[in-house]
C-alpha cells in the first residue's frame, strides 16, 4: 500500500509551530463516534463540516463505519505530519493522507485513506490484534503520533491484560508492524500517553493502568490504594532507553495527557492528573529542566482545581460517599504558540483556558461551562440540560477555535454518568491576544445515543504535529 512521494512537499507540513499558525482555517474535521449500545453496530469516524460559510456547517457530513462492532475507537492520528521536515531524515514529500485508528477495546488498528474523498475516508488496511501482539507483545492501542522515522502507537498492556504497557512502531509507508519500541524500560510498567521533545531527543510517557485495571472501569480498591499511575517516564528517544522516572506522589491518581512545548528549543511541558485521593482535586503539573542543559527533569504542580461540594442525591453511586463532585481533569491541550493551555474538567463541566506564557505561573483567562455531573449546564443552540462534559479538546492551528467532545471511555462514562451520556460536540471561540473563551452559540453537533471522542482537524491541529525548527 505504498504511495508515490509527491513533487512538492505536502502543503500541510510546516517547519515550525510558528509557521503552522499561519495555516488556513480547517474546513472539516474527523471525530471518533463510539456506539455504546450492544446492538452489533460498529463505531465510526465521522466527518464534521467546520466551514462557517457552508450550508452544512456544524453537521455530520460523512460517516465511515468500521467493519466490526465493539472496537471502542478512541484516539487516532496521521501517517505524516510536520516532523517529516526534521533534518536528520527529511522526507516531506509524503502526503498527510492516512488516518491511523486504533480500537482501544478490540486492539485492532485501522488505516483509513482520506485522499480520494476527504469527507468520506475509507479503510484500506486492518491490522488484527494477533499481529500486533505477535510482533510487539502489546494490546489496547491508544495514542498515535507520527514521528520522524515511523508511526508510534502507545498500548496499555499485553494481550493477557497485564503490564507492561508501552509503545510500538509502524512503518510510515507500508504500515507494517515493526515491533516494540523500548530497548530498556527499566521499572516502567504502566503506560498511557507519550510525546516528545524532538529538539532534546527526549520521549515522555505517562501512566494510567493495565487493561485489567481499566476495562471494567475504575476499581475502588485499586484507586484507594493508589494503584493507578502517578509517574512520568523520560526516555532517550534515540537509544530507546528509560533515563529517569519522576513520581508525582501516589495520591495523584492517573497521570494522563502529555503536552510538551511545541517549540523544539523549549524544555518543558504539562501533564494532568485526574484525581487526588487527598481531596478529590485535579491538578496540572509542569515538567522542566534548564534550557541547554542535559541534566535531570524536575516536576512541580502549577494548577490545582478543587472539588465542588454536592449532595448525595446529585451524585452517582461511586461519588456519593464523598459528597463532592471532583473536577476530573481528563484532557489538556496546548496552543501551537505554547501560550494557552486548555483544561477539561469532565466532572464539574468546565473548559478552562490558562495563559501559560510563564509556564511556572499559569493565569486563568477564561472558562466555559457546559454539562457536568451536577451542573448539567445547557447550550444556547439546544433546549434542556446536557450531560457528559468537556472531555477531548482540540485546538485549531491558529489557536482561534477549540472543539470539545463529551465522552471519555465507556466503562468510565458508566461510572460517572450512569444514566448514559448523550453525545455532543461544541465549538469554542478563543481570544488569542489577552485570552478569553466563549461558546459558539450556533455550533452544536448532536450525536444522540452515540459517544464522540477524539477530534482531528483537516491538515493538522495542536496535538498531531511535532516540529524540529523553532
Amino acid at each position, binding site marked *: 500500500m*505504498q*504511495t*508515490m*512521494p*509527491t*513533487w*512538492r*512537499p505536502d*502543503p500541510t*507540513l*510546516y*517547519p*515550525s509551530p510558528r*509557521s503552522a499558525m499561519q495555516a488556513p482555517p480547517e474546513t472539516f474535521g474527523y471525530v471518533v463516534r463510539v456506539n455504546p449500545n450492544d446492538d452489533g453496530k460498529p463505531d465510526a469516524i465521522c466527518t464534521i463540516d467546520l466551514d462557517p460559510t457552508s450550508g452544512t456547517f456544524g453537521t455530520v457530513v460523512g460517516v465511515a463505519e468500521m467493519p466490526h462492532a465493539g472496537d471502542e475507537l478512541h484516539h487516532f492520528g496521521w501517517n505524516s505530519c510536520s516532523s517529516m*521536515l*526534521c*533534518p*536528520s*531524515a*527529511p*522526507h*516531506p*514529500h509524503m502526503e498527510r493522507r492516512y488516518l491511523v485508528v486504533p480500537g482501544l477495546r478490540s486492539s485492532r488498528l485501522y488505516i483509513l485513506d482520506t485522499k480520494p474523498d476527504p469527507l468520506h475516508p475509507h479503510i484500506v488496511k486492518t491490522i488484527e490484534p494477533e499481529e500486533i501482539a505477535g510482533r510487539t507483545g502489546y494490546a489496547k492501542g491508544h495514542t498515535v503520533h507520527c*514521528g*520522524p*522515522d*515511523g508511526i508510534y502507537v502507545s498500548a496499555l498492556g499485553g494481550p493477557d491484560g497485564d503490564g507492561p504497557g508501552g509503545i510500538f512502531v509502524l512503518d510510515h*509507508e507500508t504500515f507494517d508492524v515493526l515491533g516494540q519500541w523500548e530497548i530498556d524500560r527499566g521499572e516502567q510498567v504502566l503506560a498511557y500517553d507519550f510525546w516528545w521533545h*524532538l*529538539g*532534546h*531527543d527526549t520521549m515522555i510517557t505517562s501512566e494510567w493502568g493495565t487493561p485489567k485495571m481499566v476495562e471494567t472501569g475504575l476499581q475502588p480498591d485499586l484507586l484507594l490504594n493508589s494503584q493507578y499511575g502517578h509517574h512520568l517516564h523520560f526516555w532517550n*528517544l*534515540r537509544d530507546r532507553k528509560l533515563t529517569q522516572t519522576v513520581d508525582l506522589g501516589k495520591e495523584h491518581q492517573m497521570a494522563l495527557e502529555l503536552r510538551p512545548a511545541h517549540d*523544539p*528549543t523549549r524544555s518543558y511541558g504539562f501533564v494532568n492528573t485526574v484525581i487526588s485521593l487527598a481531596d478529590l482535586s485535579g491538578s496540572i503539573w509542569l515538567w522542566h529542566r534548564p534550557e*541547554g542543559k542535559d541534566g535531570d527533569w524536575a516536576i512541580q504542580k502549577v494548577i490545582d482545581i478543587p472539588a465542588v461540594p454536592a449532595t448525595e442525591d446529585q451524585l452517582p453511586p461511586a461519588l456519593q460517599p464523598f459528597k463532592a463532585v471532583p473536577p476530573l481533569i481528563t484532557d489538556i491541550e496546548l496552543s501551537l504558540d505554547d501560550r494557552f493551555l486548555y483544561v477539561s474538567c469532565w466532572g464539574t463541566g468546565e473548559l478552562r483556558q490558562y495563559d501559560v506564557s510563564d509556564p511556572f505561573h499559569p493565569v486563568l483567562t477564561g472558562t466555559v461551562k457546559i454539562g457536568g455531573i451536577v451542573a448539567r449546564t445547557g447550550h444556547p443552540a439546544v433546549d434542556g440540560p446536557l450531560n457528559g462534559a468537556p472531555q477531548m479538546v482540540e485546538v485549531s492551528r491558529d489557536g482561534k477555535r477549540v472543539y470539545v467532545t463529551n465522552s471519555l471511555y465507556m466503562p468510565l462514562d458508566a461510572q460517572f454518568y450512569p444514566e448514559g451520556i448523550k453525545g455532543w460536540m461544541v465549538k469554542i471561540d478563543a481570544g488569542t491576544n489577552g485570552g478569553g473563551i466563549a461558546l459558539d452559540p450556533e455550533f452544536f453537533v448532536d450525536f444522540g445515543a452515540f459517544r464522540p471522542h477524539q477530534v482531528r482537524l483537516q491538515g493538522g491541529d495542536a496535538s498531531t504535529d511535532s516540529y*524540529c*525548527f*523553532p
Partner: protein
Amino acid sequence: MPDLSASWPWLTLVAMGAFHGLNPAMGWLFAVALGLQERRLRAVLAALGPIALGHALSIGLFAVAVGLLGLIVPQRLLLIVGGLALLAFAGYKVVTRFRCVRWVGMRVSAVQLTFWSFLMATAHGAGLMLIPALVRLERSGAAVAAAQDGHAMDHMDMSMPMAMPMPMPSHAPATGGGDPIAPLLGAVAVHTGALLLVAGILAVVVYQRVGVEVLRRAWVNLDFIWTGVLTITGVITLGVGLWQVLMG
C-alpha cells in the same frame, strides 16, 4: 585551450559536489536546525565540518574501491560493472518508492554527525554517481605510471566514445605522479570542497536571512532528480564501457 578530456572529470566532480550540497538531506538543513536549536551561527558552522567529512568518507570508499579494482580489472569492465550498479541502484530507489533513511535524534556529537553524513551519502548512492569521473581519473593516474613504463597507448580514453587514443599526459593532473590512488583522493577533496561550499552558503543564508519557511515552497522532490541523475550516469557509463568492448 584546456583539453576537455582531461578537465571534464574535475568539472563533473565539482558539479556533483554542488548538486549533493544542494540536497537538504545531505546536511545543510541539519546544520540550520542545530544553529536554530542553539540560537547561534557558530553551531551552524561547526556542523559543516563533520557533514563534509562524513560525505568525503563515503565518497572516498568508492574512490578507493575504484582505484583498487582498476589495478586488476580492465577499464571497460569497470565501466560496465559501474554502469550496471548505477542502474540497479536507481531501480532500487524507484522500487522502494525512495524510502528514506531511518534516523531519530538531533543532539549529535561531531562524531555522530560525521557518521550521519556518511550514512546519508552512502544510502543515497552519492559515491556511485561519481564512478565515471573516478574511473577516468584512476586511468589517468595509471596512465602516468604506465607512460613512465612506456605502455600508455594500451589505455583507451573512456571519455571519448569514438575511442580516440588517450592524449599523452603532457598536462595530466598534477596529482598523478604515477600513483593511481592520488588523483582519486584529489577527486574526493574537490568534490567535497564543492559540496561544502554550496551546503555552507545555503545553511548560512537560510539560517541568517531566508528562514526555514522557504522549505515549503522550494523543496522539490530531489529524490526524483537524484534518481534521474543516477540513471543517466548509469546509462552513459554502461554505454561507454560497452563501446570500448565493441571497439576492441
